[in-house]
């Protein structure tokens, strides 16, 4: 297919409430950033999910190589001492 006829893909990030981070929620097709924001509003915030939207061209995302999964991530599996689960958290701290 002719590349020029392909509508670019965008990744959508929604911030559900003030104080929380934008979270990836999916992707969509749009001709440019303005239309991508509108499409994101129409596709991903229909039920009041968002206070703020980011869209990023999927092309701009550099992803890790799935074939390097072993060397990237498996080496951490036996290093449980890196998890902060050996501490007593007082109740007063609440949600962490």
């Amino acid at each position: 297919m002719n590349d020029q006829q392909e509508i670019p893909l965008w990744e959508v990030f929604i911030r559900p409430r003030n104080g929380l981070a934008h979270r990836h929620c999916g992707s969509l097709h749009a001709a440019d950033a303005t239309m991508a924001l509108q499409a994101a509003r129409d596709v991903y915030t229909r039920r009041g999910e968002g206070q703020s939207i980011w869209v990023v061209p999927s092309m701009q995302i550099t992803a890790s190589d799935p074939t390097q999964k072993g060397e990237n991530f498996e080496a951490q599996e036996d290093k449980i001492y890196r998890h902060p689960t050996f501490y007593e958290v007082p109740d007063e701290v609440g949600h962490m």
Partner: protein
Amino acid sequence: MDASLHFDCLVRLADDHMILGHRLSEWCGHAPILEEDLALPNIALDLLGQARILYDHAGKIEGKGRNEDQLAYLRLERDYRNLLLCERPIGDFGHTVLRQFYFASFMGLYWSECQNSNDQILREVAAKAIKECAYHIRHTGEWVIRLGDGTDESHQRMQNAVADLAPYVGEMFHMDETSQQGAIAGLIPDVSKLAATWHAQVAPVLAEATLETIEVKPILGGRSGQHGEEMGFLLTDLQFMQRTFPNMTW
């Protein structure tokens, strides 16, 4: 205020929104891309939400026990008083977004004026509809610009849409006896006074879209119940459930 005048003014406004909402809903499952398959029904639902409140209110003003379903689904064709613009077939996507852009631009001004209406429910609908309308204008306006200033084919299709819809623009701003009396009573805006602002808002978008505006003699009729041939087919679809299963509810 005369109840029958009040009723007439509310029902024609409700009819505009329901008939156009129905037309938009025809795109559901058929839009050119998935994103628009959600965007167009979103707009349709906004319009139907506005129509429901207006029908319900109109039924109470009339005082003959008709509810929103009876007003929406069980009148005869000549009793519908929507703008002809709202009942035009969806055409291609260009026709649909241009018609929506025209209507939303009109209603943006209309609802803004309705904030001064002496009808409290109309003021409440206006407060909600102004925000919804602002998005409809923005979304459809962006499409008009991109399709008009897009490829040769999209430009030609948009220009055709401008030509096809041109005769139906004037009716939005036409004052008949009901609209004059409604405006004098302080119920609804004087639509003839919205025309200049509407043109001033629409013209820059069409210019950016490299589309030529076309001025033609307006076709009137919707406000007096004289509809195009397509209206009968629309109502057949729209009324099917209530006529087949009277008083059914979901």
